[in-house]
């Protein structure tokens, strides 16, 4: 009798363990990025759930964007971003993925754009820890290692355990790029003490052990570094981008980010000053220049050639103006222009 009861207890316990295991497996299958993002923040699943709660579809997607971006899987980032067209983080990674593939201006207005906050995530008292942890990705891609390092430090500050390979890798790499070998060595050592995937990553970046791919990567980033030491505020985005361009006028990504920043903030004077048609081209820029030329009386052949404005864009602009005037600027019947800069310029309103 006693044996039978014991057996029943064992069976119940085994069934419970199986159920817990199965639930865990289902959870992991449904939330693969939650697990990966937790690991990047140095957290076990249990710690991550305690810190962030149970993930929903939106947070799983956001974590997916952060994880795939850290791995620089830009096609995957773009694919994930396509599923989220309502958040600043979604837009931020959508823009970054497009920029990494040379398509930032071409695809900018195909997507929800919350003004400049979709290009550079705001970092401040009201930012969420998740947003702060993502904010440095664009600076690292652009070549500003000081801003990238700042955001990695802030990521560490606001990660639940104040650690995480996501940030430590970035700190190691920004310092390798700037040549601060002492600082880099601290972070490499921490990674060498971590899980195998981090150890391998750090091994490849140890002094004297750089693979050709690592060397190319570091040298590529070094080529983007600014050269002028102009002290700037942390939110002076245009100035930071201009400093990058001052050192490297060929930094196409920085130029596109600057021009898109000008356009999303509707600062057309700044756009005209920053625009160099010989260095970048996009229908978006043509559309913006047409507003400028129309407003300032410069709609002539010389300017159309100078700013590389296609006949098709001009013809479309004329159609937009006709409908706009006909309907008194009400925005009716402008559906075909929804992804143009003209529509954005006249109808986008800040939600603040």
């Amino acid at each position, binding site marked *: 009798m006693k044996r039978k009861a014991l057996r029943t207890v064992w069976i119940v316990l085994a069934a419970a363990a199986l159920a817990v295991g199965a639930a865990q497996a289902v959870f992991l299958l449904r939330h693969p990025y939650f697990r990966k993002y937790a690991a990047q923040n140095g957290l076990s699943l249990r710690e991550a759930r305690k810190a962030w709660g149970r993930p929903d579809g939106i947070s799983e997607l956001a974590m997916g964007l952060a994880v795939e971006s850290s791995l620089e899987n830009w096609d995957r980032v773009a694919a994930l971003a396509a599923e989220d067209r309502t958040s600043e983080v979604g837009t931020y990674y959508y823009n970054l993925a497009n920029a990494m593939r040379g398509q930032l201006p071409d695809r900018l207005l195909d997507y929800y754009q919350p003004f400049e906050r979709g290009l550079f995530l705001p*970092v*401040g*008292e009201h930012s969420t820890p998740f947003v*702060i942890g993502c904010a440095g990705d664009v600076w690292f891609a652009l070549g*500003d290692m*000081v*801003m990238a*390092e*700042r955001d990695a*430090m*802030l990521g*560490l*500050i*606001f990660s639940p355990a*104040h*650690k995480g390979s996501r940030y430590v890798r970035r700190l190691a790499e920004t310092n390798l790029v*700037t040549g*601060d*070998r*002492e*600082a880099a*060595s*601290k972070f*490499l*050592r*921490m990674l*060498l*003490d971590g899980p195998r995937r981090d150890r391998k990553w750090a091994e490849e970046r*140890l*002094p004297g052990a750089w693979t050709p791919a690592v060397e190319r990567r570091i040298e590529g980033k070094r080529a983007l*570094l*600014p*050269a*002028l*030491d*102009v*002290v*700037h*505020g*942390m939110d002076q985005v245009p100035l*930071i981008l201009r*400093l990058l361009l001052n050192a490297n006028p060929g930094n196409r990504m920085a130029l596109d980010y600057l021009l898109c920043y000008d356009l999303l903030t509707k600062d057309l004077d700044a756009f005209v000053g920053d625009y160099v048609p010989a260095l970048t081209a996009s229908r978006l820029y043509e559309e913006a220049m047409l507003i400028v030329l129309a407003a300032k009386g410069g709609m002539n052949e010389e300017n159309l050639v100078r700013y590389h404005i296609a006949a098709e864009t001009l013809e479309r602009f004329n159609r937009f103006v006709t409908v706009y005037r006909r309907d008194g600027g009400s925005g009716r019947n402008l559906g075909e222009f929804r992804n143009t800069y003209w529509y954005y310029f006249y109808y986008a309103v800040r939600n603040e």
Partner: protein
Amino acid sequence: MNRVGGWLLAAALLLLCACGRMAEVRPVGEGTDRPSLMYPDYRDVTVPCNLAPLNFYYTAPGRGRFATTFSAGDVSCTLRGREVVWKERRWKELLAAAAGGEVSVVSRTGDVEVRWAFRVSADPIDPYLTYRLIEPGFEVWDDLEIVERCLENFDTRVISDWRHTGNRCMNCHIHSRARGDLSLFYLRGEGGGAILQRDGKLRKLALRDSSMISPTVYGEIHPEGRYGIFSTNTIIPAMHPVGGRRMEVYDTASDLVVADFDANRMLTFPETARADVFETFPVFSADGRWIYYCAAPVRPLPAEVAQLRYSLVRRPFDPATGAIGSPADTLWSASARGASVCHPKASPDGRRLLYTVADYGTFPINHRECDLEMMDLETGEILPMDAVNADRSDTYHSWSSDGRWFVFASKRGDGLYGRPWFCHVAEDGTPARPFLLPQADPHFYDAMLRSFNVPDLGKAPVGFDAEDIGRLLRDVPAEVFE
């Protein structure tokens, strides 16, 4: 059999742990933050006779066997292993045998033998150190705490933290003349204030009146305890895109004020509240009859931040009335030196002034060139500090109560995280080679991602803890100053 199996398993686990400890430390050597054969590098340093054990580890590559023999007088001790970790009793025996003399050390691994030594000063150090633990940040913070460490062992005690204060910002804790019963720090934000510990009582003070630029920022308590001298600053953080300085912080306005803790009054004086001069970092002289502070002509900022240079100035102070007087003496001229001074601190014996010198600016913690400088107050002579300074920022210093030791925060090594270093000052003012605060685990600093901010020495433990601070914040309104 089962018991034997258990013991074997435990032994195997212990062995595994030991093997983990034996693992090679990488990267090390020239160009890394672990350039020496040991970390922390205690070769040729001078330590006080009441210090906790100097635990360290060897950075040498490979998995060799290590043996370290320490000898002083008739005491000799050999410790084996890459990690040199002392038992407290044996360490105390060694220190007692070496007090006022030297400890000879032989480090051996394989065929390699290195002989070195460290000195043990007969001057004890004030046994308590307070510091704020903070991650290098940029206007934001999370999980701050102020800790008090006993330097005679490895005990620490949290005296204020984020748990009891709603995760608010808190600034560093300073003792007055290393007194455990007279000290001050700030809790920022709504409901906060300056936390003054005096006469066995904790008070929360709103050190601000309508004429001030901001609540008080930098400052010090008068030796007699009635007055405090403070700066009031508009502080702007900014970034350096190149040059490794990372963040630059400057003031766009700053004045000096005196707080009367007995009468709850703020006193301002036209001489130290000039619109055309930035005045900051005020402190008292040892006798409390002078104030030292830094002053620079106002400039357009940040455009001319590289030309912003502060001089070291002294003015008379009347301890009876709390008045700052005239004339002002310039002890150290920024224009003559082509550099900028900050953080002056007078030694409690009144003989010396320790301060920081950087190429420019008022926030040198990211200035690699920032070094400590010491002035003999009797002769005005500047004493050599080559033994103390490193190629990274050395700043935020504080004196021991007898003026024979000082502690400072240095970013030597990785350049990012401030660590507390201690320096002995001989009778003639000669500083010894400084040493890093020892820890129970010699690998402690490897994984540490927080800075030890504003380390400050104390003769005795402060009379409060984090719970007291939580209660003060929650239950007591800040006293208003007029």
